[in-house]
């Protein structure tokens, strides 16, 4: 997705136009536009929360289980923490930062969901391209192993990986990578099998290019579109998964608030304070639905002219 910095001044207008053209496909679909605005809402909130939240998200400054008031716009939770601040801060671990293990408290940019999807796209396309382009035994063995991975119910795999490696941002990324890779690999494989019959691949083979060069410089750029749309959908799945793990109590560790875990903690007080459980639940649902609508609209728009 990285937009390359433009080096040659002469090519600037055409590049920009290209980017704009590929962006404008979003606005042609109403579904994608709605989805994108839902996602943008949370992304903007995430950036705001980096610099400002109404209150300290982890401080028990208020009376517990209060409804909305002027002071706490969304109310407070069972420990007297401001829900709006926690909700805002909760976007960071998903979208903006990954906390590295250790006491130093260092974070790298890019949320857990983003890195998880990048991981599964990378691993999946390496495996899928090898299987699809090389064929034969490579294909047999890679697909057999991936079949075994797919056979695992996802949640069981998450549970086993996290029970085995312990909680942590990197472990969640690893779990998302492992569970996402087989799907990406299947897609990449079918794309590679289709593309490898084209003439330019034949030409590259005749030139005597390296296998890896053909896979990553010839095939991958031409398979980019479907893989990126798939990746977009996967960000939705990843947030879905992070929420579920948080709900099960094995997701992203504290101190940063995690939406799934907020739902899990608040549901114990569901009879006295329904709002505390509703806000994070709504937040997860809206973000995942937004991403799904966006990816879905995009895919529909891209395949419309291919028929």
């Amino acid at each position, binding site marked *: 997705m990285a937009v390359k910095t433009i080096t040659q001044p002469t090519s600037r207008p055409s590049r920009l136009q290209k980017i704009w053209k590929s962006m404008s496909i979003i606005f042609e679909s109403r*579904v994608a536009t709605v989805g994108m605005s839902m996602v943008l809402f949370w992304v903007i909130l995430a950036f705001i929360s980096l610099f400002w939240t109404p209150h300290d998200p982890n401080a028990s400054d208020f009376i517990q289980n209060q409804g909305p008031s002027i002071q706490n716009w969304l109310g407070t939770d069972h420990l007297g923490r401001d829900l709006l601040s926690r909700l805002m801060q909760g976007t960071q671990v998903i979208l903006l930062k990954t906390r590295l293990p250790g006491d130093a408290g260092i974070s790298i940019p890019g949320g857990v969901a983003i890195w998880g999807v990048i991981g599964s796209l990378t691993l999946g396309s390496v495996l899928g391209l090898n299987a699809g382009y090389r064929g034969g035994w490579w294909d047999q063995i890679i697909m*057999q*192993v991936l*079949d*075994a*991975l*797919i*056979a*695992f*119910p*996802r*949640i*069981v795999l998450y*549970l*086993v*990986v996290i*029970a*085995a*490696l*312990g909680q942590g941002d990197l472990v969640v990324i690893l779990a998302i990578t492992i569970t996402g890779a087989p799907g990406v690999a299947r897609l990449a494989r079918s794309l590679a099998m289709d593309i490898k019959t084209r003439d330019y691949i034949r030409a590259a083979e005749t030139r005597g290019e390296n296998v890896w060069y053909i896979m990553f410089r010839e095939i991958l750029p031409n398979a980019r579109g479907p893989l990126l749309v798939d990746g977009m959908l996967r960000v*939705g799945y990843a947030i*879905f998964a992070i*929420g*579920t793990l948080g*709900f*099960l*109590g*094995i997701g992203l560790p504290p101190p940063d608030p995690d939406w*799934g875990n907020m*739902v*899990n903690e608040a*549901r114990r007080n*569901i*009879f006295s304070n*329904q709002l505390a*459980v*509703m806000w994070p*639940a*709504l937040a*997860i*649902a809206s973000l*995942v*639905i937004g*991403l*799904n*609508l966006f990816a*879905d609209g995009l895919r529909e728009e891209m395949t419309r002219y291919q028929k």
Partner: protein
Amino acid sequence: MARFIIRSIISTIITMLLVSISLFLLIEVGSGDITVKILGVFSTPEQRASYAAQLGLDAPAWQRYIDWLIGNDWRAKNKVGYPLVTSINPQTGEADWWADVDGQLTRWTLEEGRLLTLKRQDDGSTTSHISSGAWQIDEEGREYFWGVDVKNNAVMWVRGAGAEVWALTKAGLRKEGDGPMKYIPLRKGLLRGDPGISLQYGRPVAVTLVSRIRNTLVLAGAAFVIIMPLALFFGILAGINEGKPLDRIISITSLGFTATPEFVTGIFLILIFGVWLKVLPAVAIFTSADAIFEDPKLIALPVLTLTAVELGYIARMTRASMVEVMDSAYIRTAIIKGMPISRVVFKHAIRNALMAPITIIMLHVNWLVGGLVVVEVIFGYPGLGYYIYKSAIFGDFNAVEAAAMVTVAIAIITRLFGDLAYTLLNPRIRYS
């Protein structure tokens, strides 16, 4: 066709084997020291080491994998020298291990340096005798004896050098002298229907698992019966009206439901029906084993949650397949030649359109299991998913492995059936 079936079955078996190895390895790598969980953090290293030996954890990993898969009684049999058999204990209803000494079920125990032979009577009780002349002598001149102890282990005692072991009793850890030097916890192995002892509950996994599987099947079955007709109906309805407002409404609603995590849906259903309307129980607490049949209200909310999540997905699949079929040339021909639309839809389109969703549902069982874990945790429903969750959190590897293998087996076998059904229904694949 026969070749295709055989190839699918072989591939399925290889997949299962790979899954079991990777599952075992994963748990092996990370599960840490399970004895800390069982004995508590205040146990001493000797106590942990002693208990780990009693669990057979001192054996190498490959050995334990084989034991887990196909059992170890055949290995222990060579050491003991008698055939090892299981017999149902009338008091607990669970199987105990015995050595079959010339038709007499026998165990041994070491008390105050004397080896006692316990012989099982027909009524289930035992008589003990002092056994003499049983000791054998090894190269170093020690007197040793391999036998079956009263805790279903094949053990090696050494005379005069009784090891001090820590036995876990209901009252806590107790130090015992005269302990065995080596343990082989007897098990038949997964393939022979014995996944071992649950470390969390202290009972055979097979016993605790069966009722959980039944509960889950009831839940999934009830959800399935509701989901299928509804999903197919809405999917077909949306498919025929492609692009119209009705299609938009159905598509977006089903996308919304699919994209909402199960626990969010579950929480909202609890809020609506359990907290505000107070018409349905918000948790599924089982007061007896057959509670679901006595009070079907208990599973109303779990079933509703599963329905909400799965309905959308299958409806979308059906819609996509229906749209594709409605676009095809033969449907256009039928419409152009003046056939009534209802006849076109019911006679020609639906049959072809349903093929894809039905096989996709077979592939979708994995997702269903994932949904089940979350739904069962939300409602505290004692099913397979909750069991996996609890066991994984505890690190009860015997239970996790067995339960996960059950889910994997269900997923793979339904997939095999899906593949076969698709090939049978679609001649184009069969002959290519």
